[in-house]
């Protein structure tokens, strides 16, 4: 299973499924990270601890630990 955490910088991916617990899932959805959404990895923070992704027109920062719960496939 490929997750957002494994993506390269500037890669565009499509969300397949959210494996997050309920509350985090709601949070992600409220930011637009849901099934079929297209994400683009913009930047990694030092030590790849945090990832900046683009969802629609918004940029979002996520921890690697959360990114791991987002199943994606490349497009």
């Amino acid at each position, binding site marked *: 299973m490929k997750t957002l955490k494994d993506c390269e910088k500037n890669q565009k991916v499509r969300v397949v499924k959210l494996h997050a617990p309920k509350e985090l899932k709601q949070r992600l959805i409220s930011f637009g990270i849901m*099934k079929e959404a297209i994400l683009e990895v913009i930047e990694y923070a030092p030590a790849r*601890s945090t990832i900046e992704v683009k969802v629609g027109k918004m940029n979002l920062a996520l921890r690697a630990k959360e990114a791991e719960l987002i199943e994606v496939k490349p497009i």
Partner: protein
Amino acid sequence: MSEIEKKACPVIAKHIKVALVGQPNVGKSMLINSVSNAHLHVGNFSGVTVDKTEVLFDYKGYHFTVVDLPGTYAFTDYSIEERVTHKYLCDDGYDLIINVVDSTNLEKNLQLTSELMSMNKDIVIALNMSDEAQKEGIEIDEEYMSELLGIPCVKTSAVTKEGIEKLLDSVVSVGEQERQESKLIFSEPVEEEITKIVSYLQKHKHEASNSYRNIAINLLKNNKKTYTRLHDDPIWTELQPILIEATKHIELHHDSDDVKEAFAEEYASFNKGIITEVVKASAVQEKKTITQKIDNILIHPLFGIPIFLFFMWGLFQLTFEIGSIPMEWIEALFGWLGDTIGATIANEDVRSLIVDGVIAGVGAVVLFVPNIIILFIGIALLESTGYMSRVAFLLDGFFHKFGLHGQSFIPLVTGFGCSIPAYMSARILKNDRDRLLTLFIIGFMSCGARLPVYVLFAGAFFSAEMAGNVLFAIYIGGAFLGLIAAKILKLTAFKGADEPFVMEMPKYRLPSVKLIWHTVLTKTMMYLKKAGTFIAAASMLIWFLSNYPHNLELEEEFASKIELASLADEKKELSNELAVKHLEQSYLGTIGKFSEPLFEPLGFDWRMSVALQTGLAAKEVVVSTLGVLYSLGDEVDEESGTLVDAISKNISFASAVAFIVVIMIYLPCLAASIVFTREAGGIKYFFYLFAFTSILAYSLAFVAYNIALMFS
């Protein structure tokens, strides 16, 4: 704009109470500011408005009450602010909703709009930031959008003030009309289930104020309020199985085990439909935006953090370098003021009260206004440009190691300005443990009121070139201590699972000069007001405590000694000695002497001990106390004009270091302590904080004192 006036509420006018709702950082507060000329705090990161604020104004015979609610992405009750907003919207204390959306990011913003639409309330949509959208080549057909949603949509811009009156007109006309049924349409499977429930309700002639469709949607969405209302109804026994069946179908259709997720997806596809109909974006979008270009540098994995540190260093350099220029003038001004006013007062005691008490005390605080202004400008820039979130992004990994959340960075930086808003902004942290932890260490971020103490001591013990660096070191040192304290607390008192970090990175915006000017002005005026009222009163009290009781015996003894002395120098020395003796036996001297043994291991004399204790009220009082105490003791010596000289003469380097350490760590001012107690949710937390900071301050000051002794 002439028709909009700020007025007290006239009794006869018609009232409209509007709830201002929108996602974070879409310019709600700024919009309300431009509508009513109110002055709410505005920043460029999510969560500037942490509590609801009401603004009143009149427009076309209507009396408006606009309630500015904290931004919320969705009704998830995730953070305190979201709970504030959600609760307010669910209670019926308002007439209609103005939903403020960011025109440059309509799709995301409409997600909240759809949730609002299922609430059965009147809504007006403000397509805000339309000027920015235009620049980005985004065209929105507002009329078609109004028609499709069944909600009036008005293009507005808080910056150019475009569309503000039109928005208010729409609010008025919506308030006068009958409510329309929401035009929210779902996918076929969901619509089918809705129809089933609606026809069931129709069959049983269920009585309700909402439409059946609205009830059906809310039931399917698992809306608590609708659930409880129907739960006690006799039809529930039959309705419940229908509902369970329907939910199952919907979840199956969306391949999800969470009906909320399913509905979010429903909304998203509805919104996508709306967007394709009404938004025309020019194709040149693929070019790199300015934000991306700036981010390539500012959040660079390697250079990002050094750049941030450089900015902070620069800020403190400026604070000291530029801030020290007008200091001489202010000092001269207050010296002149003291002399001039002093000359007009005949009574010796009153003269001393005014000159040595009030003017010396207030002057010592006002002296640092230039420093404060520069610091506030720096923080305002950080807030309004959008850089704050970048730093949170860069530092999250690092913060995480210390048990802190990346978003803790925002209250922590605010803490450099003032602890009070910092405590309030800690509300953006959802998890109570994270929030408490952050609250506990905000005090380690030295606030603006401590700056005067640092500037004073840095100026007294270091050359002008070094003083800026020393200042920077003090601030960074405090921040690091805070991190270590956080780690200790996380491992002991606040153990628990980590909170996820999901944060929006807003677009960079050029800070508006007006906005910065306004923020800085308000904060500076607050500082000055404090100097004029609280500090002046405290100075008077300290003056009194340091002048009384009069000891006649002592005075007479010295009077005769002075008379006997022949040389002018000798006379001066004797009267100087009298002043010191007098001070030592005053009330303040007694308090100081009483607590001196406690502070002796840190190398403090009784005057410093007193200053620390008065500093519990406010940190500015530390400076004014020192000002009063040293000016009384030394005033006879005409050579040492300034407090800086008095300090460098009377206090050893090691004691000064220990003093700074205590100031850095111990309890912030009284007002901040009150806010802390409120935000933490109990007086017991205040005692924890008091014990924690006092013990830490004392032990670290002890260590620092002894280390400094070895080197000096």
